[in-house]
C-alpha cells in the first residue's frame, strides 16, 4: 500500500470543514472519508504482480559509452494498469537525460529520474521503456529489481512490489589509449623493410632485397645478388616476428592507490593505479599483436585474477577487455615469487615480460628486487610504473611556504623512486615511469624501441 501526494491534498482539504464546524465528529468523518478513499483506490488498483516484465540489456559495454536498458512492460491483468515503473541499476550506471545526451547521476540523495517511467496500459497492452545508463566504473554490474507501483483510478493510493528481474552488464575498460594506436602502428610499419643499418642484430630477420638508393649503408649491400642482377642490391630486414610478450598486471595493494585526481576531462577521473595499468596493457597488447607477437596477459596479486592466452588477431582485444573488466585491486601484498613462478610456467623461451606495478621503494625492495634477477636472466623485463599526477602537481607548487615543503617532499619521493629505478636498471630491467595518461604511449614506445633494437 502506498499513498500519493493526492492523498495528502485530500487530507489537507479536510481542514476547511473542520475549521467551519470544529467538533470532533467532523474530524472523525473526514478522517474516515480519507481512509475510505485510500482503501477504495487500493482495492481498485491493478496488481503489481500481474505485470509481465522483460528486461534486455547488452552483455558488455565500454566504460563511458551510453547504453540503454530496455524494459517491456505487459499488462497481464484484467484491469487497467496505471503505474510508475522503476528500472533500478547500480549508482555507477545511473544516468540522467540531459540537454546534450546524458550525464552521470551524481547526487546520491536524489532519486534517478530517468529510471522512473509512468505507464498507462489497457489490459493486454505492452509498452517498451528505455532507461538510459552511463557506465562510470569498470566491472560487472548486476541490475536491481524492477519496482512496479500501481495506482487506483483516483491515483490517491495504490500497491507496490519490487520484482527481481535478472540483468547483468559488464563494463569494459575505456581504452582511451587507443588514440595512440595509429601513430604507433605507423612507426611499426616504418620499421618493416628498413635497411639493416640501425636495426641489424639478434632480433631481426632477413626480409627482402631491393635496389640500392643513396643513403643506404654500404655494409648492407648484398654482393652476390648484386653480381647476379648487375644492379646494386641491398638486403633489408624486418623485426623478428612471433616473439612472446607477457603483460603482468600487479593487482596488489599498491595498485589500489588513487592517482590522477587531476581532472583532465576523462570519464575516469580519480581512478586507481590499476586503471592506468589496464589502459597500458590494452595498448601494448594490441600493438604487439599487430606486430606479429604472441601476447599473454596476466593479472596477479597472490592468485591469478585474470589471464588471456592463445588469443590473437581480432579476438585478442575483446578477450583482453573482457578478462580485465572485472579485475579489482586487492588489499594484499603482491606475492612476487608466485608471480615469477606463474610467468615461468607460461613461457619457457625468451620473452618480453612487462610488469605493470608501482615504484614504491619499500614495496620494490621487499618484493620485486629479490626476484628480478631470476626473471631478467631468461627474459627481457620492462617495469612500467604509474606515477601520481597529484604528486607531480605538488612538486611544482611554489605559492606558499607550505607548498615549498610539499614540493620538497615530492622531490624527495621522486629521488627515491629514481634510485629504485636505477637499481632495477642495473639488474637488467627497462624502467618506464609516467603519469597515468602517458604510461600507455610511453610503454608502447619502449616496446617499439626494444623491437627496433632487436632486443626481444
Amino acid at each position, binding site marked *: 500500500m*502506498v499513498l500519493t501526494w493526492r492523498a495528502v491534498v485530500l487530507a489537507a482539504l479536510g481542514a476547511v470543514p473542520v475549521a467551519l464546524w470544529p467538533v470532533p465528529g*467532523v474530524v472523525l468523518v473526514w478522517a474516515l472519508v480519507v481512509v475510505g478513499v485510500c482503501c477504495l483506490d487500493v482495492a481498485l488498483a491493478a496488481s503489481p504482480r*500481474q505485470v509481465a516484465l522483460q528486461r534486455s540489456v547488452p552483455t558488455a559495454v565500454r566504460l563511458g559509452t551510453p547504453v540503454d536498458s530496455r524494459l517491456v512492460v505487459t499488462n497481464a491483468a484484467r484491469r487497467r494498469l496505471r503505474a510508475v515503473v522503476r528500472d533500478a541499476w547500480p549508482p555507477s550506471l545511473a544516468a540522467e537525460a540531459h540537454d546534450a545526451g546524458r550525464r552521470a547521476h551524481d547526487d546520491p540523495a536524489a532519486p534517478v529520474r530517468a529510471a522512473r517511467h509512468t505507464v498507462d496500459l489497457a489490459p493486454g497492452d505492452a509498452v517498451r521503456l528505455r532507461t538510459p545508463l552511463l557506465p562510470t566504473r569498470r566491472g560487472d554490474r548486476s541490475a536491481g*529489481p524492477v519496482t512496479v507501483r500501481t495506482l487506483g483510478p483516483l491515483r490517491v493510493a495504490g500497491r507496490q512490489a*519490487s520484482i527481481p528481474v535478472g540483468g547483468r552488464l559488464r563494463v569494459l575498460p575505456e581504452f582511451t589509449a587507443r588514440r595512440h594506436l595509429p601513430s604507433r602502428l605507423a612507426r611499426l610499419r616504418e620499421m618493416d623493410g628498413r635497411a639493416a643499418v640501425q636495426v641489424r642484430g639478434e632480433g631481426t630477420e632477413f626480409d627482402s632485397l631491393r635496389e640500392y638508393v643513396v643513403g643506404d649503408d654500404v655494409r648492407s649491400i648484398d654482393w652476390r645478388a648484386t653480381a647476379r642482377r648487375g644492379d646494386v642490391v641491398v638486403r633489408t630486414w624486418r623485426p623478428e616476428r612471433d616473439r612472446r610478450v607477457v603483460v603482468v598486471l600487479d593487482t596488489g595493494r599498491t595498485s589500489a592507490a588513487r592517482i590522477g585526481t587531476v581532472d583532465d576531462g576523462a570519464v575516469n577521473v580519480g581512478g586507481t593505479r590499476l586503471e592506468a595499468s589496464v589502459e597500458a596493457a590494452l595498448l601494448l597488447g594490441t600493438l604487439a599483436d599487430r606486430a606479429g607477437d604472441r601476447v599473454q596477459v596476466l593479472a596477479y596479486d597472490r592468485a591469478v585474477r585474470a589471464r588471456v592466452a592463445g588469443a590473437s588477431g581480432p579476438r585478442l582485444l575483446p578477450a583482453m577487455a573482457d578478462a580485465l573488466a572485472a579485475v579489482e585491486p586487492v588489499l594484499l601484498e603482491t606475492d612476487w615469487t608466485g608471480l615469477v613462478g606463474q610467468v615461468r610456467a607460461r613461457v619457457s623461451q625468451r620473452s618480453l615480460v612487462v610488469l605493470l606495478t608501482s615504484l614504491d621503494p619499500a614495496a620494490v625492495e621487499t618484493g620485486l628486487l629479490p626476484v628480478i634477477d631470476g626473471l631478467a636472466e631468461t627474459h627481457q623485463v620492462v617495469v612500467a610504473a604509474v606515477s601520481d599526477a597529484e604528486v607531480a602537481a605538488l612538486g611544482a607548487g611554489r605559492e606558499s611556504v607550505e607548498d*615549498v615543503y610539499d614540493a620538497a617532499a615530492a622531490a624527495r619521493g621522486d629521488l627515491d623512486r629514481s634510485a629504485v629505478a636505477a637499481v632495477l636498471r642495473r639488474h637488467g630491467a627497462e624502467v618506464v615511469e609516467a603519469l597515468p595518461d602517458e604510461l600507455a604511449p610511453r610503454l608502447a614506445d619502449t616496446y617499439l624501441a626494444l623491437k627496433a633494437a632487436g632486443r626481444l
Partner: protein
Amino acid sequence: MSAPTTEATGTWTASATGDGTTFASRSRRRWRTVRWALLVLVSLAALVALLAVLRPPTSTTPYDTGNTRDDGSRALAQVLARQGVTVQQVDRVADAVAAAGPGTTLLVPPSPYLLAQQAEALAGTEADVVVADAGHDLLDAVSAGRIGRAERGTTPPTPVPPDCELPAAVAAGASLLEPGLEALSDGVTTCWPGRMSNTAALATTEQDGRTVTAVHDAAFLRNGDVLTEGNAALALHLLGQHRRLVWLVQDPGDLSATDLDAPSGPGSPGESAGLADLLPPWFGAVAWWALLVAVVAALWRVRRLGPLVAEDLPVVVPAAESTRGRGRLYRRARSRGHAAAGLRAAAAARVAHRLGLPRSADRATVVDAVVRATGGDPHTVTDLLYGPPPADDVALTELARRLDTLESEVHRP
C-alpha cells in the same frame, strides 16, 4: 561478447511476472516479522490497563474529597454524603461562586494560590462560609475585617475545652486544634482560646445574614486527623448545616474571577482562562487536523519506490597522502635543511640529465656543465646547488624559485 571498441553485440534478456509470492504468503511473512513486536506491545498495553483498573480513582491533591491519603478529605466527604449532604467539589473560584447560593455551605480549605480578587468574589456569595487556615486576604474579605490572624500559635499539649456557646464547638468538646485567630471587633464568637489572651482556634461571626466561620487549623478536615479528639464532630457540624456543600479545592492555574482572566466574550465573565481564548475557536480542531495531515504526508513519503541498489566500491587509497604527510613533517619540524637538500638534489638530477651527464657525475662536473650551459657565475651556481641550508622559510622559498629559474635556463634550447 563485444569488442570494447564497438557497440555491444550480445544482449542479456530476462523476464519475470510477479515475485512468486501470493497474498497469503506475504501475509504470513509479515505476520512472522511483526508478531513478536506485536506481542510485546499487547502485553504492555494489557499491563497498563490492568494497573489502571486495579488502582482506584483517587487524587493526591490535599483536601481533595477523592484523596484517601492522610492529607486528603475523602473520609469526611463520604460521611457527609451518607448523612444526606450533597458535596460538590469545584476547582475554580468562579464555579464556587456560581454554586454557592443561599442555603449552601461554602468550604474553602487552605488555598495558597488564592488571589485577593478571588477572595473578594468568595466573600460576595450568600452561602455560609467555612474557611480553614485562611490567609489574611480571604479572612479579611469574608469576615469584613472582624477576624484576623494572630502570629502562629502552637498546638496545645493537652486538649482544650471549647469555652464558648457555639453548638458545633460544644458538640466537639475538647480539641487539640491550633489557635491562631483573633477577634478584631465585637460580634465575633471565639472558641478554644489559646494560651495567649486573645487567640482562638475558631472564630465565627454573623454577617449580612450568613455565618462566617474561620478555623485556624485545617487538621479537622484531613483523613489523618479527623478522628483526633472532637475534630469529626466539629467538621460534621460546621459543614452539615445545609443540604448542599460546595467544596473548593482550587486549581493552581485558576485565574477565574480576576482581571487576569480574559473574558471570552461580553456577558460571560469568568469563562475559561488561558491562551486558548486568544485564538479563534476552530484553532484547536484545525491543529489536530494538521497533525493528521502530517501523518498522511509521512505515510506518502516513507515508502520509497523500490529498495536501494547496492554496489561494491573498491577501497581507494589516495596515493599523494604519504607525500603530503612527509611535507607536513618537514614543516612541523622546520626541517629546512632536509627540504632544501631534497629540492637541490632533484634539481641537480634533472639538470644533469638534461645536460647528458652520467648519474655518477660529481658536483664540480655538474657545476661546470651548468655554468657552460647558462653562462652564470660558478660561485652562484655552486651556492645554489650545494650551498648551506636556508636560514628561514623565506630563504627556502627563495631557494626554490632560484632553482626553478636555473632549471629553466638550462632547459632553454
